[in-house]
């Protein structure tokens, strides 16, 4: 019985010690007391410690009070008193200014991330979003719409709303919402079109995070549609050679004079698909005949270019086929295979040179490619001829071997026949 009483006593003491330790631990961890309550409140007031711990600001040591004011060290409602500088919920109209307090302050930002730019707010003010915001439109995007709030992650975090792969989805939240965008009278099919574009394919299927997404062409904080005159500049950031050729071409001035948006005229914008030679044709994908008339000089030039490109493409394919047959027959044609890559490069170069709109330049690239494929075709034919020669040689050799075997067989028979006769 004494033992049982002693055990009971120990249990009470142990429980007390555990509770004290938990209470002490809890106090030590929660210097930001806001989360003690907001962690258990219903949305939209709910912000859990787990959620806030993911926020880049929390990770840098900032607290709720950094944006909302108040005194997070007080555990009661005094923490949210006006005397403690509590600002409460930040109205949408105050958000850009509030973020800019720190993010536009170079001296302040240097302490946390010296490499981070501090012109976001000034850029925002030049954006379509910022201009409408200045006019009192509170539906337009402010910082938190793209970056999130309370669990704001850096752009390098794959879970971030502004991670390269997630940007289009972030913009689409508003721009693909027909009802939300109705007052602005702009299309809402950009996201759907982008999803079928070659840029989206490069980003998602190709895993190329530098492939264009919304912000690449429109800017991020200063987001706005590139003007007609700026389209070429935007595309040329990646498509350098095409832009250089286009600049020297006759089309540049004509498009400019007609107020046409450069690259977009032939390639469209959000739904840019992989260009094919069919763009030079007269089918549904054809673009030249949208402006040119059948039979004019440009139409004839178009036909010549298209014929040249088709010829080179076919020539590459037939050389590939022939080399594949030779290779499957065990012939060594790796040199010709390597040369085929150069022919493919010539074809790509010819297609790029189309942007010069000078048939003689395109012809040069096509000719260079055709010379290579002619050599490769010959290499394939030579390899097959060599294969046939080997097979004939094999046939002759096998006949000789068989004849020798037959000769040996009869010689052995004769030898053994005569020796057995001798023995007999």
């Amino acid at each position, binding site marked *: 019985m004494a033992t049982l009483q002693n055990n009971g006593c120990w249990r009470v003491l142990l429980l007390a010690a555990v509770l004290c330790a938990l209470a002490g631990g809890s106090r030590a961890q929660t210097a930001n007391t806001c989360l003690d309550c907001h962690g258990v409140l219903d949305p939209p007031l709910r912000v859990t410690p787990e959620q806030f711990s993911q926020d880049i600001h929390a990770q840098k040591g900032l607290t709720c009070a950094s944006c909302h004011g108040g005194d997070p060290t007080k555990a009661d409602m005094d923490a949210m008193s006006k005397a403690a500088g509590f600002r409460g919920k930040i109205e949408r109209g105050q958000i850009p200014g509030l973020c800019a307090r720190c993010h536009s302050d170079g001296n302040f930002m240097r302490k946390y991330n010296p490499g981070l730019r501090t012109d976001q707010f000034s850029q925002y003010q030049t954006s379509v979003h910022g201009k409408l915001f200045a006019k009192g439109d509170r539906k337009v995007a402010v910082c938190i719409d793209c970056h999130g709030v309370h669990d704001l992650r850096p752009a390098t975090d794959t879970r971030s709303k502004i991670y390269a792969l997630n940007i289009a989805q972030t913009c689409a939240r508003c721009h693909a919402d027909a009802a939300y965008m109705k007052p602005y009278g702009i299309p809402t099919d950009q996201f759907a079109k982008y999803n079928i574009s070659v840029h989206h394919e490069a980003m998602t299927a190709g895993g190329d995070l530098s492939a264009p997404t919304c912000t690449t062409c429109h800017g991020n904080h200063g987001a706005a549609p590139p003007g007609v005159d700026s389209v070429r500049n935007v595309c040329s950031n990646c498509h350098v050679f095409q832009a250089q050729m286009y600049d020297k071409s006759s089309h540049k001035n004509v498009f400019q004079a007609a107020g046409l948006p450069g690259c977009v005229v032939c390639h469209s914008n959000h739904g840019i698909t992989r260009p094919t030679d069919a763009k030079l044709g007269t089918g549904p994908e054809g673009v030249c005949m949208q402006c040119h008339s059948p039979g004019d000089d440009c139409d004839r030039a178009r036909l010549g270019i298209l014929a040249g490109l088709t010829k080179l493409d076919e020539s590459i394919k037939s050389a590939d086929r022939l080399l594949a047959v030779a290779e499957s027959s065990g012939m*060594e044609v*790796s040199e010709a295979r390597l040369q085929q890559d150069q022919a493919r490069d010539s074809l790509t170069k010819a297609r790029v040179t189309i942007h010069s709109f000078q048939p003689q330049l395109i012809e040069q690239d096509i000719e260079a490619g055709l010379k290579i494929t002619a050599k490769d075709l010959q290499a394939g034919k030579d390899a097959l001829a060599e294969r046939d020669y080997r097979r004939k040689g094999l046939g002759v050799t096998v006949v000789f071997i068989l004849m020798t075997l037959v000769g040996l067989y009869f010689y052995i028979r004769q030898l053994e026949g005569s020796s057995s006769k001798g023995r007999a």
Partner: protein
Amino acid sequence: MQLLKHCREWIDERFGWAKLTEPLRHKTVPIHKLSYWYFLGGITLFLFGVQVCTGVLLLLYYRPSANEAFESVQYIMTRVHFGWLVRSIHSWAANLMILTAFLHMFSVLFLRAYRKPRELTWVSGMILLFLVLGFGFSGYLLPWNTLAFFATKVGTEITGQVPLVGHTLLVLLRGGEEVTGATLSRFFGIHVAVLPGLTALLILLHLALVQRFGMSLPPGVEAKWKVDPTVVREMKFVPNFLLREVMAWYIALGVLGTLAALLPWELGTKADPFGAAPAGIRPEWYFMFMFQTLKLIPSKILHIDGELLGIGAFGLAGAIWVLLPFLEGRREKRGGTLIRGAGIFALCYIVAMTIYGYLAK
């Protein structure tokens, strides 16, 4: 003919050629229903000769450095007259030689030709088999193509698992921690100097032993002939058996030529030490059974590294195989049955694991 006679007399006068070749004239080969198995050793020897001849021809153009090896083989295949034929025959003959060496070993085992007094013939033959495998392993890397590079990487890694001396062996084989140009130089040296020298010596010993003890008779035939000496049938080694052997060599030559012409040995792509290993890296077929076994062994067996156990088991099996004639002991009948059982098991295991290795993804 007169000139030939004079030459023979000239040699005989100085070296006693007739006396030297006397045993060959008296050597006989038993004739029975299993006589065909006697040809395998000769075919293996013929293929070794083909390897020496084609190897010397390849040496004229081959350059053993990481920068030039692949290109030099490519040059042999595309530019050198009949280079494709020489290289393809060298590769095919290597594989056929390993196959016939294995078949020869199993035929000797099942015909129980390893028995007293031929124990050392068996031991020298087993060492020759290991040397032939060494030729295969070292020669595979020489074209310096992707498959060979990564297969050698895996193969030498396995060597590194040997207890105590594994790492030293690995560094010794590779000429460093990684498979590099230094590995290629080493493998080249081993392939064209060390192994041919050792093999030539052992072939001489093996042939001398075969000559000394003559052809072995299968136990069943031997018992029958003992009971009734009238049924003994033999043929002279020279010229009767030799002519038949030449026929077998001609057939082997025809098979080699056909394979080389219809299925020239491919070259693949040049090895890129910094590139990713291609999917499905596998060793040559004659190492497949070991590779597949090591793949299937659990990573830990009774707290011991599984791969280590596998390597240990193969090492032990190899050692037992070499010493097989000494293990049969005095109880010949029981020992013979055990060895035949082990032989059947080994043959089935090798064939099954090789097929499994090729079918498994």
